[in-house]
């Protein structure tokens, strides 16, 4: 881990689409060991907040830094390697197999293919490693995303409705992933509509309402 003591530091950040305000004056600090839950109604801006932290959504104003570096000034690709983000929809190539999708990410991280296989095993997909992604069920694709994040071992975990689409066995993956990350001195931000599950996981929770974080 880096020497800095804050992993995420947002200060009065706003996100807009033209005149429409999506997020307004959002401030959030995440320290190592934190597991932050974020709740909010549909369309409140939860996904936007996660993508902002993941350096995927440029802010309209305010100061934001991840791992102590200004995330929109620095060479982002260095800090991006340390972020583990799982969005609403799986970002996999449908024509490749599950293993090939993971192997690409492993390759980009300088990891051998064996790591990709091992990660698939961890999420219970060894048997389907060579199945094309578009021949795999929704839950299998979600599991593959978890395998990707397990494989790269990020310091900052950003999970968007992580429990959805996972079966009873697989929901434990979420806890597993969060615990691992937090134990190694990382942190997690979890967005969810499932308050019970997240409350039991999170060290603190926030609510998004009217574009601001409460």
């Amino acid at each position, binding site marked *: 881990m880096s020497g800095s003591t804050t992993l995420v530091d947002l200060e009065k950040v706003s996100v807009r689409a033209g005149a429409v305000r999506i997020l307004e004056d959002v401030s959030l600090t995440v320290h190592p060991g934190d597991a932050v839950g974020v709740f909010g109604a549909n369309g409140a801006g939860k996904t936007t907040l996660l993508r902002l932290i993941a350096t995927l959504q440029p802010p309209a104003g305010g100061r934001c830094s991840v791992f102590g570096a200004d995330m929109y000034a620095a060479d982002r690709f260095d800090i991006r390697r340390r972020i583990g983000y799982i969005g609403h929809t799986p970002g996999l190539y449908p024509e490749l197999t599950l293993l090939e999708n993971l192997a690409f990410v492993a*390759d980009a991280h300088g990891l051998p293919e064996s790591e990709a296989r091992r990660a698939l095993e961890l999420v219970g997909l060894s048997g389907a490693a060579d199945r094309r992604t578009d021949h795999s069920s929704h839950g299998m694709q979600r599991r593959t995303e978890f395998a990707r994040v397990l494989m790269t071992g990020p310091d900052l975990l950003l999970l968007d409705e992580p429990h959805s689409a996972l079966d009873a066995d697989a929901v434990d993956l979420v806890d597993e992933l969060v615990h691992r990350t937090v134990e190694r001195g990382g942190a997690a931000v979890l967005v969810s509509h499932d308050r019970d599950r997240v409350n039991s996981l999170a060290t603190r929770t926030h609510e998004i309402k009217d574009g601001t974080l409460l």
Partner: protein
Amino acid sequence: MTDAGATPGFFAQVMTIVRRDLLRERRSGEVLWVTLPFGAIALLLVPLAIGTDAPTLQRIGPGMFWVIVMLFGVLIAIRQTSAETQAQRDMVALTGLDPAAIFVGRSTASFLLLVVFQTVLGAVTIVLYNVTPTGWAVLPVVLLLAASGLALLGTLAASIVSTGRSATALVPLLVAPLSVPLLLGATQALEAIRLGRSSLVWVLLMATVGLLLAVAGILSARPLQETA
């Protein structure tokens, strides 16, 4: 699992992208099974449309070849971007690959596909239009320069407009002007050879354009990603 592996060097990152693109092409067969036959059909249709008068065909053959290569070459080079989903873009961004390496990797993969495309279409042209290729020394150089120029051009144009969905519209407008020097260089170089003149200046023109595009693409890769 393990702590993250060592960040791969620039060349390794380029190869990661090249491998991914070629694997995706192998699985989808888009270039091989859609673009290539379409290009060949275009070459076939021309004689049907303008009449089959042998001298005319022979005269326009090389030109038609270049036009088809340019048009479909652009389609090949922008093929990845147009179909990419937001989730896939996010995933690639978070691999932390250097945008410049991504640019070079994509261009390289497109270049390889374009070489195949050109070779097949070249053969079709020779057969259909009864063209006798001349300048065996220069021809491969011209072909390779055209392929690399187009690959760079398409990749660059796609990355300039990539974020906005409706902006794909602009790709042809961005690509057309810059493909003119390539087209000019390619046709004039071969014309010069045919007339027994030196083609050096045209080859140099193509090389210069290619170099400029490469530099522009590599330098702009990060700023473009920063603002994505």
